[in-house]
């Protein structure tokens, strides 16, 4: 990730087919955009104040937004990796999160560790269930890829077709959820108190939500290290950047795709469990998240995990802050307005990975 936008000019001519890099195409820095986003948030604060909301309320909404951003980030990082490597928008990603939440719910019924840990509302059982749900969802992602996307890839299916296939997978997975668990709402901990902690500046926050944020940061950091430092991670970036050349270099791109699904599926499971903890476990939960997930992913620059994290944070905060002056039902509208504004200024999003 560089902020340097100058193209290095040297004596020899570029090849005839050379394309201007996407950053070079606009030639502008990201800073005006960052400032614009901050300005929009300040504006939201002002709207909130006009609507009679106190600074403490606004501060708390911001903190809530960051926590929501953490949940979104766990989903959007996987979504962006799949997009980067496989080049299509995976509509089934939200339902992968739902399945993660339900699998953990099922596992918790048989696992010990129900008692709450410290100030958290959850016990060891939930953490264990979450860790076990990750490989289950990863395996399911691999299975869907094997049965659906791989045959399409082999036949050279277009991106549109793959996207539509993911839409089909989304409905299929949702049906399975209804089939196994029904349409009911579930809580990981029915009726358990989840008192908020008092922090300086009048910020009140539930310990659970702090945990969600730390987990999201940890996972995004882990993905970053994987992509930047490991052999397979670099091969993932290489494949995202230029799949044909990746094959030429001896990279087994099918293996890369499998790792992509494993990471995306595992993160989706964690995100689903965390969302289930913060609200409730229900069949539509992943679908509700899907649009904000796309917004965050696109905002951050499709294919960039760091971008997906920051995009998720921006969307989360915009969601919560806007609820100070308009009905929360319109939250998605506000988030998408923000996304469109960013894309008008910087069509490639805040960050980019891949694409040659």
């Amino acid at each position, binding site marked *: 990730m*560089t902020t340097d936008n100058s*193209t*290095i*000019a*040297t*004596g*020899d*001519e*570029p*090849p*005839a*087919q*050379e394309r201007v*890099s996407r950053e070079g195409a606009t030639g502008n820095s990201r800073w005006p955009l960052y400032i614009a986003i901050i300005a929009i948030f300040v504006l939201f604060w002002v709207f909130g104040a006009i609507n009679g909301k106190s600074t403490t309320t606004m501060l708390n909404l911001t903190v809530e937004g960051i926590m929501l951003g953490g949940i979104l980030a766990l989903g959007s990082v996987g979504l962006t990796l799949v997009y980067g490597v496989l080049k299509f928008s995976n509509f089934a990603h939200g339902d992968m999160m739902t399945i993660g939440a339900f699998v953990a719910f099922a596992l918790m019924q048989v696992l010990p560790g129900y008692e709450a840990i410290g100030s958290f509302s959850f016990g060891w059982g939930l953490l264990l269930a979450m860790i076990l749900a990750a490989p289950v969802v990863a395996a399911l992602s691999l299975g869907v890829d094997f049965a659906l996307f791989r045959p399409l890839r082999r036949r050279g299916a277009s991106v549109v077709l793959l996207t539509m296939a993911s839409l089909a997978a989304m409905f299929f997975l949702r049906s399975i959820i209804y089939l196994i668990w029904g349409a009911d709402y579930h809580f990981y901990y029915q009726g358990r108190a989840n008192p908020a902690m008092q922090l300086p500046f009048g910020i009140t926050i539930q310990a659970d939500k702090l945990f969600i944020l730390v987990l999201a940061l940890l996972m995004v950091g882990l993905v970053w290290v994987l992509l930047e430092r490991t*052999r397979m991670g*670099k*091969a993932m*970036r*290489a494949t*995202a*950047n*230029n799949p*044909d*050349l*990746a*094959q*030429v*270099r*001896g*990279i*087994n791109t099918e293996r890369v795709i499998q790792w992509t699904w494993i990471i995306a599926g595992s993160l989706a499971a964690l995100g689903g469990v965390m969302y289930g903890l913060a609200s409730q476990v229900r069949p539509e939960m992943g679908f509700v998240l899907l649009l904000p997930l796309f917004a965050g992913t696109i905002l951050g620059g499709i294919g960039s995990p760091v971008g997906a994290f920051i995009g998720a944070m921006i969307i989360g905060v915009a969601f919560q802050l806007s609820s100070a002056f308009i009905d929360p039902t319109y939250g998605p509208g506000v988030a998408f307005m923000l996304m469109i504004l960013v894309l008008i200024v910087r069509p490639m999003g805040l960050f980019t*990975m*891949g*694409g*040659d």
Partner: protein
Amino acid sequence: MPLLEVNGITAGYGDSEILRDVSMTVEAGEIVSIIGPNGAGKSTLMKSVFGLLHPKTGSIRFDGHDITHREPYQIVELGMCYVPQVANVFTELTVEENLEMGAFLLREASLEDRKARIYDLFPRLKERRRQRAGKMSGGERQMVAMGAALMLDPKLVLMDEPSAGLSPVMVSMIFERIAEINRNDGPAMLIVEQNAKLSLAMSSRGYVLAAGENRFEGTGPGLLNDPEVGRLYLGG
């Protein structure tokens, strides 16, 4: 037994046949050029050899293995590397990462020795090893692409139009490097080149392809001095 043996292959995309019954060989350590007019099927021949396109008939053997139906990553494993003409570097990766991807198949803990050898060959790359390949000039990209292909110490390197789009100074520099890499038990080279005179001058043998078929073959100097080849394909 030749290192590479292409035996009467017919290949193309879909129903079209771009190559018809093309045969050729490359011996270990040789430089072999394929020349011919645009659309003669030179790049298609390269892609068929490297498994990016599977021939409909005929066979391809490399170093004692039948590779006719193998995938590129399996062919790389046998010691053949390919430098495509365009999009031949990972633009989003640094120079160093590009080299590392060239040795993806090795599970060695350290690639430092191999990278050092490439940096000796192209000192410019060492200076710029932390730079993203997409921000480099055409000549530098060609160096990155060649360096990445050499990371595995291949037995045969396929080069598709190494001089395309480069300035004359860069072209002679790249060709000097190709000769240097080939010397002293270096890999054999199979080069497809528009700049036929330059390419044949350094080749031990050459093939002329026209309309997807073998037209002429001979030693590099032999083809250069052949009046008919000169008139038809070397611009007089």
